[in-house]
Every structure is written in structure tokens, then in C-alpha cells.
């Protein structure tokens, strides 16, 4: 590994030659927009937002997949780059519902951020719009494929856990979509509600259903907490209004751990005054359950009760 020197928008960056242009730009405070890039995921290069101009190369390059080279001169916001990004955004918006008014993702949606940054708006057109197919079968995840921009982050993050791999792409061209299991509903699919996919979705296609209707992103005072269910401590975000915690959402797994439903429910129970009832999946359907069953501590509780009960009896005898 060696260090290379390159110029990005007139700034000099000295970075490891293993970095991509996007990563190098970040080191000098330049934020290149990207919808499908996530440093914890493999590089997909699908969204084409991160295109940049590199001197000596006539084609625009995706900054997320291009490695830095000694002496490289990169321009990230030229007229040509911006024009192309606008086109990309316009196409995405053309097949995206105009509902930021009430969309739960508003305020933390990357598509909204970039549309604002590049001043691209919804427009009326006669072309096709993805049909709204809401999957409401899960109490934990709401899926709205009409908002999906096919960035692939959910598929990749799910695939990182070898015994899951529930999400995948189906069909081709404009019909391409993300499916759960063998194109099943979330309920019927093998999905274990870990919410990894929700945590990485840049738009409102996958949202946390237990957070919906409780609070909007901009109202929330947020605190990142480590999960206490096991010693790895995956990250969750506790969202509060007027200092009263109202919801918990999954943020990021820790190294070597996948995020899990048990952890999420444990965190809810720990931080929220009135968490919604827990659900668990039994035979391809969700069923409301009790906290002890959801956390699989029924036996333990019974044993505690027995132990403490016998203690009490003991005291009584004396």
C-alpha cells in the first residue's frame, strides 16, 4: 500500500492508493452525492449519482468504483456532471410518488436531499409510474415498491448474513424490483425482521413500521444507544419528543453481528415507556405475543419466580 497525491476540485488530497475517488474526496471535505454507495457494502455502481470528471478521460466515471491514481485531477461539480446528475434525479423522480408531504422518510431521504441540492422537482408526464404495491403484512417493516430506486443496498446488506439472504432482484428493465423470498409477502418470506434493509434504504421504500405515525424525523431528538441483548451492542437510535422517548429504530450492526429482532425489542423495552406490543412470526404469519415470549425468557422468568417464591416461603416459615 502506498500513498498517492491527487487534486479534487482544486484541493490536494494525499491518500492511500486503495481508496476510491469518492473516499478520497471525503478526506478533503468534498461530499460527492451517491445513492447506492455505502462503505459497509460492496460497490454496486448502479445509481450513477457519483459520476465525476477525471482529466484525461472523456467518459464520466463513477467515483465510488474508481480507484485513485497518482496525479489524478478530478472535478466533482462541473456543468457536465451536474447536468447528468440532474437527468438521473429527474428520471428517478419521474417514477417516484410525490408524497414528501406525508412520507415517513421525509427529512432523512437521500433522494429528497439530492433533489434539493440540484434543484430538481417532480414534473407531470405521461410515462409510466410504478404501481403502488404496499406490503403491510409485517408489523416491523412497511414496504412500498413504488418508492424503490433500485439502489440494491437492501439486497446487499441482507446477503451479508449467510443464513438470511432473503432479499433479491427480480425481473428486468423497468419491471425490475426487489422481492422478499420467492416473491412472497414479508410475512410469508423467511424474513426475520432484523431491519438491516430498513436501516440502509435511502428512500421511503422500506420504513420502520413501529416508528411510523409516532414522530417525524425533524421533530425527533435522537440518541444512539448500544443494544444490551448481547455483548456486541449493535446500534439503535432512540427518538424522543420533548425528552420523552417514543420510538426505537435500527441503525447499524456491529462487526460480526447481524442486528436482530430480539435486540430491537430488548432496546424498545429498555428505553420506551409504552412500547407497542411485540409480534413474532409463527408459521408464516405474525402473531401478537407477550414480552416474555418475544424475548424468549419465559422459562427464566418462571424459574426466577420459583426461586424467589421459595425464598419468600422460607422466610415465612421462620
Amino acid at each position, binding site marked *: 500500500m502506498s500513498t498517492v497525491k491527487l487534486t479534487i476540485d482544486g484541493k490536494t488530497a494525499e491518500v492511500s492508493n486503495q481508496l476510491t475517488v469518492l473516499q478520497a474526496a471525503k478526506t478533503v471535505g468534498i461530499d460527492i452525492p451517491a445513492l447506492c454507495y455505502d462503505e459497509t457494502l460492496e460497490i454496486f455502481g448502479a445509481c450513477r449519482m457519483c459520476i465525476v470528471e477525471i482529466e484525461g478521460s472523456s467518459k464520466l466515471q463513477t467515483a465510488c468504483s474508481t480507484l485513485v491514481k497518482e496525479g489524478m485531477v478530478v472535478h466533482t461539480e462541473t456543468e457536465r456532471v451536474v447536468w447528468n446528475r440532474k437527468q438521473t434525479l429527474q428520471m428517478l423522480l419521474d417514477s417516484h410518488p410525490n408524497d*414528501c408531504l406525508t412520507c415517513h422518510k421525509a427529512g432523512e431521504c437521500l433522494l429528497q436531499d439530492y433533489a434539493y441540492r440540484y434543484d430538481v422537482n417532480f414534473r407531470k408526464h405521461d410515462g409510466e409510474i410504478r404501481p403502488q404495491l404496499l406490503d403491510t403484512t409485517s408489523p416491523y417493516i412497511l414496504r412500498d415498491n413504488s418508492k424503490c430506486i433500485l439502489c440494491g443496498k437492501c439486497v446487499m446488506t441482507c446477503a451479508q448474513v449467510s443464513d438470511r439472504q432473503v432479499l433479491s432482484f427480480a425481473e428486468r428493465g423497468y419491471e425490475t424490483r426487489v422481492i422478499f423470498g420467492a416473491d412472497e409477502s414479508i410475512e410469508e418470506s423467511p424474513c426475520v425482521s432484523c431491519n438491516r434493509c430498513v436501516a440502509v434504504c435511502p428512500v421511503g421504500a422500506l420504513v420502520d413500521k413501529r416508528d411510523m405515525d409516532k414522530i*417525524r424525523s425533524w421533530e425527533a431528538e435522537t440518541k444512539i444507544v448500544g443494544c444490551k441483548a448481547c455483548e456486541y451492542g449493535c446500534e439503535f437510535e432512540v427518538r424522543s419528543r420533548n425528552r420523552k422517548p417514543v420510538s426505537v429504530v435500527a441503525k447499524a450492526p456491529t462487526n460480526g453481528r447481524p442486528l436482530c429482532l430480539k435486540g430491537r425489542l430488548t432496546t424498545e423495552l429498555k428505553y420506551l415507556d409504552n412500547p407497542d406490543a411485540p409480534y413474532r412470526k409463527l408459521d408464516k404469519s405474525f402473531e401478537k405475543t407477550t414480552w416474555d415470549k418475544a424475548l424468549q425468557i419465559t422459562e427464566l422468568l418462571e424459574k426466577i419466580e420459583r426461586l424467589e417464591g421459595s425464598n419468600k416461603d422460607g422466610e415465612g416459615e421462620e
Partner: protein
Amino acid sequence: MQVTINGKQYDFDKGTTVLKACSEIGLDIPTLCNDERLVPSGSCRLCQVEIEGWGKLHTACTTQVREGMVIHTHSDRVIKARQDLLDMLISNHPLECLTCEKSGACKLQDYCYEYGITEGTYRWEMSKPYFDDTNPFYTFDARKCILCGLCVRVCDELQGTNAIGFENRGFDTQVATPFGEGLENSTCVSCGNCVSVCPVGALEPKSKKKFRHWETRTVRTTCSYCGVGCQMDLKIKGNEIVEVQPAFDAHNEGLLCVKGKFSYNFLSHPDRLKKPMVRKDGVLVETGWDEALDVITSKMKEVKKEFGSDAFAGLTSARCTNEDNYMFQKLFRSTLGTNNVDHCARL
């Protein structure tokens, strides 16, 4: 007065409006046109509630509590009525939350979310578009205006300027300057007190830097212009102030002037002094703190030794904080030994 609200009994003072009563007990009633500083207008009708035995719904902001009143603030009937109102408003409102500057701080957006109104179902013609960009500090976009009247009432009742009013009637009603002369040629003094109360994106400050409300943090401080000392909240993105909102719970009661509200860009002006400067061969040149302070203190020691304490004089500042001023006079009195301290209190 004994009043029952949503099945629970409470006591309120006579003359309390139903809206105030609800807010006292922590009940959130939606309203787009209410402002405690103004005479209630009941124009948005969103705060309507059901009062047993009173027939039709009544606006909470204009109704005073009465002995024995039984009020329902969120009955099915009330919710349906509010949903209809929001539906009508949003049907005549451009759906631009994607890029609207107000997004995240918009009451119409908040209430639509709360009442589940995702889009307008009335397919009527939209109001006539009108955009006034002539004021240097803010813009007016009539398409987004919901005619709550707050701007007009604040300009009249609180600011006393009367630069804007309602024009035309019925569906054609618009907030406008007299004779359609535009803001530039109106009596507007750019105080921005209308902008501070606009619940939607109709009146928007012209910010130098693009920002979204959810990216900002807020710091309460005191305005640094005149001696009124208005309290205000600075909205900050990164290391820059992007908007100023007046404090409503201070002696300025939600009011500011053109300087307090809009004139904060000097802070990030490129001319700001960034390094100490010392005159060398007749020219001021930038240097470090060490050298600058050394030059000052060695001169101080020299003058004190040669000419005594009263050869020093200092002008402290009516622009600086109390603590700065205290330190300044302490330097002169205690360290240098002279009372030759004054400032421009007389100018």
C-alpha cells in the same frame, strides 16, 4: 369554571378560550391562524371542536369556556371535519415538499401527516400564481399561501405598518400590497415579522446558504444591534447562521426589526479580521498572537516606565459584552493604574 374535556373535568378561569384551555392541559389542537398576541380570527377553522348540545362544530380559538361545557376535541366528527379542511387546503397547494424551503417546519405538512391527508382530492383549478421577489430579504409565493391571515394581522396589529392586506374576494382572495405595487414600492420596512409567523412556505427569507430545517441546530441569544436587546434563536447549519427567529417568550414578544431578523451575514463576510496585524515600515502586516501581544506589552511597559500610568487611555465598547467591558476597565485600572477609560455612550 368547571369544564369537561374528552371525558375529564378541569377548572379554568372565566374568559379563557377553549383553545387556551386545551393548551393549558397539554392538549394539542391544530391551528394555522392562531397567535396569542393577536385578536382571534377563527379563519382557518382547523381548531374546531365538538361541544355537547351546541349543534355545529365551533372554533376553539374564538369560543370561551362556560360552566358545565362538555368538549370533545378529537371525536370522529371533529377529525372528519379537520381532514376535509386539510384536503381542501392541500388541493390548492403545490406539492413541492420535495424541495420547498419550509419543509420540516411547515404546519400544513405537520397536520396533513397527523391527519393522514396524503394528497388533495378536490380537482379544482389552482389559485392564480403570483410571486413577489422584490424585497431584498424575503419572497412571497401566493401559490403556497393558505390565507391564514397571520402576516396581515401581525403587520397591522403588532408592527403597525400595514404594508400588506387582503385583495379580492372568495376564491380569488390574495395577500397583496395596496394597488398591486409590489413589496419594493410598499410601506414595508422589512422587519420580517410576517415571515416569522408564516406557517407555510409562502413568505420565505432569502437565505444566502441553502439549508433544510432538519439540518439546523438552534441557539438562543441576544440581538447585537440596538439597546432593546431582543431575544432570538439563531438557526445554524455547520458553522454558519442560516436563519433568525424571534423569541416569543421574551420582552420582544416575537418581534424583530430588519437588522435583527435579516442582517447576520456580516459574520461570515470575507473581510472579517482573522489574524493580528502589526504595523511594519508603515504598513499593517498579519502576524501571530505572540508577536502582536509582545509588541503591545513591551510598549505598555515602556510607556508606564517613562510617562507613568496616566499616559494610557482606553475606549471600551458599548458593542461588547459586560464581561469584555469589565476586563477592559480592569486592565486599565488594575494593571496600568489609570482611570482613563471611557466609551461612546455619548454618541
